[in-house]
């Protein structure tokens, strides 16, 4: 594990809202989590869930848009934001989901916030603990 003495720079990534972006998003964010001493497996899974939700549910009425991911240290925790410019959060019961995604994220995060930005889309903000003695 890297030991650094400065607060690491935020990570910012823009990806197309397509299935192939899920592995890119989760591995990048897991790497950042490892660097700052946050639980990388949890971050990887939570990012996979949040990006998959956006890809599957946010663009049902139009062409796939963008996923904007951001990771940074905030209040001594790792804050990961997954934003899409889609239709906004609403139920899609025909999707055949089991309601696993958000519940899994809720289980792994100290806090999960879902926002409806004024400009549309959905922003999911997830907070993860950082181990004592880690950088950040």
């Amino acid at each position, binding site marked *: 594990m890297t030991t650094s003495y400065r607060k690491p720079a935020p990570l910012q990534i823009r990806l197309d809202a397509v299935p192939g972006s899920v*592995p890119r998003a989760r591995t990048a964010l897991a790497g*950042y989590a490892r660097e700052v001493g946050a639980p990388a497996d949890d971050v*990887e*899974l939570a990012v996979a869930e949040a990006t998959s939700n956006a890809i599957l549910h946010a663009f049902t009425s139009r062409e796939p848009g963008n996923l904007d991911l951001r990771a940074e240290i905030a209040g001594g925790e790792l804050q990961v934001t997954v934003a899409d410019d889609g239709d906004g959060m609403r139920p899609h019961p025909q999707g*055949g*989901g*089991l309601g696993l995604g958000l519940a*899994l994220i809720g289980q*792994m995060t100290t806090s999960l916030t879902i926002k409806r930005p004024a400009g549309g889309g959905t922003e999911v903000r997830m907070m993860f603990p950082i181990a004592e003695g880690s950088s950040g």
Partner: protein
Amino acid sequence: MSEPAATGLSASAERATTPAGAAAAIVAFEGDLDLATVERFEEALDERGATNLIVDLGGVRFIDSSGIHALVRARAARTASDLGTELVVAPGSAVERVLEMSGLLEELGARADRDSALAALDDRDPPANGRR
């Protein structure tokens, strides 16, 4: 940032025999099971119309709810057609942890290795093979 991990999923098929002498297909997966690979996963399972199937996730490094949904659906479809399905999950692995967190580890009846899975296939249908 750490080096980008190689992601993807590969499937390989094998044949085996249960302790009671029945034929079983084994599909073993390696890699990552997420939204990017779930189609490949479903195709690999669809091709196996086998009466007895073992889905071996022993080589899977990452799974999320897309993979879990696919597992649950495949299993339900096979059970509805009276086909036997057993799952192999490495004890202590990330896959086991995610199934556990999802509340599905017991329902999916994950086995620790192929031998336990083969034996479990024999246990499934008492009238047909005379075991309980």
